């Protein structure tokens, strides 16, 4: 699947591409309004990652054109301006999601995956990965026909890991994803260990391999070995 990263800060768009490029995605980049408009017009993408402030024009304008042409690409706005107005305007014009800088790349990956899943929902409301089958509508998990009962947080956690498979994800990013920005009170993020331990136990009891690997001092990695 092709992604387009429209972001004038080269250092940031390089990071985004380096993180997202892999077996599932290939990234293209555009650094200004003109080249971005051209690319959007010429090609089709699974998802467009769009910065609002661009040299030569406003990212929202690209979004408007996209909607005028009735193109069905998913759009994720990334902006330094986390003002409510921008967010509302973006979402009203037809963006699928909005992420404020600075974000964790893992969070970006999760959002992009969520958008693509939503866009290709027709007839496909399942994620099948290795032994696991996630039902996205009923939010249930099966492992080779055996149901695994997960709590809400465990399900979200698993989905987050799947969106970031084979990548190291920090505890901090996990906490922000699951509990939001409000929770900045924790001096250490060790409490998520309980959730991870439970998820891991449930998966292994159902006969799955140990997908979740702790990376010392940093976080966790969900790996699928073929």
């Amino acid at each position: 699947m092709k992604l387009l990263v429209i972001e004038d800060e080269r250092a940031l768009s390089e990071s985004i591409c380096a993180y997202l490029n892999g077996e599932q995605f290939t990234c293209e980049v555009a650094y200004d309004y003109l080249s971005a408009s051209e690319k959007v017009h010429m090609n089709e993408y699974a998802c467009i990652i769009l910065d609002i402030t661009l040299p030569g024009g406003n990212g929202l304008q690209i979004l408007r054109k996209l909607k005028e042409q009735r193109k069905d690409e998913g759009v994720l706005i990334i902006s330094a301006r986390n003002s409510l107005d921008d967010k509302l305007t973006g979402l009203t014009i037809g963006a699928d999601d909005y992420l404020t800088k600075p974000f964790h790349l893992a969070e970006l990956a999760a959002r992009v995956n969520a958008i693509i899943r939503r866009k290709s929902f027709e007839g496909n409301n399942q994620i099948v990965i290795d032994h696991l089958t996630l039902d996205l509508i009923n939010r249930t998990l099966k492992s080779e026909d055996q149901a695994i009962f997960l709590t809400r947080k465990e399900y979200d956690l698993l989905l987050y890991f799947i969106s970031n498979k084979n990548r190291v994800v920090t505890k901090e990013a996990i906490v922000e994803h699951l509990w939001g920005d409000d929770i900045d009170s924790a001096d250490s993020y060790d409490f998520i260990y309980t959730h991870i331990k439970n998820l891991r136990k449930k998966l292994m009891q159902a006969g799955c391999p140990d997908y979740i690997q702790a990376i010392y001092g940093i976080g966790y990695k969900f790996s699928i070995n073929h």
Partner: protein
Amino acid sequence: MKLFAKYNRINLTAMAVLFVLSAFTYYSIINWVLIHELDESLDQYRIKIAEFVSKKHELPTIESVDDLQVQYKAVTVPTNKNYELVVLYNTSEQKNEKFRRLLYSQQVGGQYYEVSIAKPLEGVHLMAKLIAGTTLILFLVTIVISLLVNHLLLRRLWTPFFRIIDSIRKYKLDSREPVYPDTDIDEFIMMRNALKEMIANTERDYRTLKEFTENASHELQTPLAIIRSKLDLVIQEEGLSEKQVSALQSAYANIKRLTTMNQSLLLLAKIENRQYSTNESIDVAKKVNEKLDDFKEFWQDKNIKLTANLDDSSIVANSDMIDLLLANLLSNAGRHTPAGGTIDIGSGPGELQIRNTAQDKALDKLRLFTRFYKEKTSNTYNGLGLSIVKHICDQAGITIEYNFERNEHIFSLRW
């Protein structure tokens, strides 16, 4: 001292001095004039005697007309004509009185007589006193009238001044421009214009400063995003050493800290800019419960005991702001409760109270809500949370109060 009082004080002193001087001058002049008149009448009498002597060659018999006292005395040497003030016995009044006396010599046939013609001064004094008394009364009347006039007229004249002061007192930076009263007094127009100009300048500077804060914070977001994304890439590398991991941890933690601080500053700027103005009715108890679901887990981890008595409570405010308010208050409570402590939350109509066990002493009530206030400097907490809380409360019309009782921090909100 009030300008009126000061003015009156000076005015009255000047008038009193003027009065004393004028009364004294009046009295002297009138006294002099009257005595001069008296002298003339004494001289008239002397001329009458001289005429009588030249006709009849003898002194007229002494007759006392009015208060006039006339005496003759034979002398050998003639005395010079002389007016003087003397005390004599007044036979008609039967007491000693002051008299004006004319002494001179009259020659009758070769014999010299010393003639003394005297008139009492009583009338003169009486007249002088009367005039002085009248002046005093007039002066008192003048004072009373001027005080009254000052009081009524000046109060009326100063009205625009007090109204200008009043509108300035009610004025708050970045709110509606004060309404100035109409006036045609040049001084007040001058003051009003000066104030207008000053307020316009201040507002402009204030706005520039706020815009700067907001822009600076926005500009910081991108480099922060780049640094964080680079760190996210670095940790994908395999075989990081323990030293590298610990350096990365520290880098992450501080990016997080910088991000939070930056976002808090932005938020403060936005609250100040009133970017959150849409209001709706919010079920406070329900909102607190939602938040508690998230926080409980953290608190259990620290072995903090939570008691919540949430009675129905609602407020009309901006939903996002109330979210932030609660998140800040709750995370604050959690942060400052020692392991094994308690957090009590209570709500009711128009109020919300959050108490938590204190780690040590009471917070400084005066500085508590100021930006970057911290009890300990080593803390990674940015010291903006309570400042945000205060800003939100101010905007939403909530009064917030901090108390310290029985080793507990208590935040009480009322609206």
